[in-house]
């Protein structure tokens, strides 16, 4: 079966165009008066102290790295989940049910994969890398 990707492209362009239109409204119709005080960073009415380019907690960085690991895990699971019935069936299929022999192949393979990630989760849990303190 061939998939028609033209509608996806149309949706992408529509979404971008629509958002840019809103942005254009802001730029075109909003008056610009400026002024030194108005354009300085907002800090509760007092003069800004120091630069906002401050160092921040390494925990944010940790979360980002853990996100990468677990999100790639999820990316591997999508094809498995949608083909799971096919993987656990040797022989012909009628719709979603298997007419041949049911096999544990797909299930066990994924248990190994999820098990490894479970160990990883337990490790970062023990190391207190997840959760805030």
């Amino acid at each position, binding site marked *: 079966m061939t998939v028609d990707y033209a509608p996806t492209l149309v*949706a*992408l362009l529509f979404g971008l165009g629509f958002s840019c239109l*809103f*942005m254009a409204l802001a730029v075109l119709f909003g008056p610009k008066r400026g002024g*030194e005080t108005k354009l300085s*960073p907002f800090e509760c009415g007092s003069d800004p102290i120091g630069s906002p380019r401050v160092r921040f907690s390494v925990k944010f960085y940790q979360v980002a790295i853990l996100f990468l690991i677990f999100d790639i895990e*999820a990316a591997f699971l999508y094809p498995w*989940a949608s083909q799971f*019935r096919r993987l656990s069936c040797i022989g012909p299929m009628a719709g979603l049910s298997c007419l041949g022999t049911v096999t544990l192949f797909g299930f066990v393979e994924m248990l190994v994969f999820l098990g490894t990630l479970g160990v990883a989760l337990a490790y970062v*849990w023990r190391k207190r890398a997840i959760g805030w303190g």
Partner: protein
Amino acid sequence: MLEFLIEHTWLQALIKMALLILAFVMPLASLSTWAERRQSAMMQDRLGPNRAELRLGSIELRLWGILHFVADALKMVFKEDVVPARANRFLFGLAPILAIAPVIITFAIIPFGSDLCVGHAFEVLRDPASMCTSTIPLQVARIDQGFLFYFALASLAVYGTTLAGWASYNKWSLLGGLRASSQMMSYEVTMGLSLMGAFLIYGTLEPHAMVLAQGPTPSSWGIVTQPLAFFIFLTAAIAETKRAPFDLPEGEPEIIGYFVEYSGMRFGIFFLAEFVETIFLAAVVTTVFLGGWQVPWLYPDGFHLMGWTLELPHLAVVLIQLVVWSLKIIVLCWLQLLIRWTLPRFRPDQLMRLGWKQLLPASLINIVVTAGVVLARSGGR
């Protein structure tokens, strides 16, 4: 005319996208800004916005304050356009676009009705498979990897908030942007994994196929077959929208959030994006867990319930499906308003614990259990 549309899928897609966004999503998003203020007022024993009125000669239209959203929109467009002196102008302008464009684009995968059967609008579809030779799908983009497309684009929204926080050159917005990025990343993992059980059951990533797999019998809808996933996904997705009880990136009384330096319509885009996200979340939950456009016991040829039959022409069936689909979404939006005004905000450590130590393991267990059940039942049925 119709033949032309069937051949040129890009034109078809443009019309459907424009109708879906301009005639359904945007009006609903605008109305829900009003509904949220009225709902919160009701829950806090206040009156809420009720003053906006339209004077046409001697007639005064008040309509319970519905016109407030028109006034708000006009105000935002004509407010001063402030770009802080030391902000990164390019990223400052790019951030709102990155916040709203992904969620609008992903509406393309949501099916909002069964396929239109061209040429049989006023007939009863007794045998759709042989009668429908040419169809117009009521879904903008039908691609096999539908939900992968959604998750890929949804993760772009993180850039919008993080860049807004960084580009503003402001301490509060940087803090808000950091909080938003860590919160959204934490819950995105859980969001993807919680739906895996549903993908296992339906055996597809394509939203339209999922709706068909659920069928018109409510007992086979996702909320019955995947109840745990429903709650995990709803929680994680509300955290993605950054609304209370997950509004730490905004934190009104303390840091105001990543959009503190934004004003006028630039702020309006972030504001609108939040409401569009609630509608999109409702649309996804409807598609995966509430049978999408399926109406209980409504088949392509009409209602069938316990031996009792009511035949309906094709067009009537599709219209009923459209109305019921909209109602499901409106009810889910309203549920989100109730949650938003009922629960107090989480602490950051509670937020992280809920995401990583409770919802993530729960969704992993859900996958294993669902896979086991699917395997056990995949023999002869």
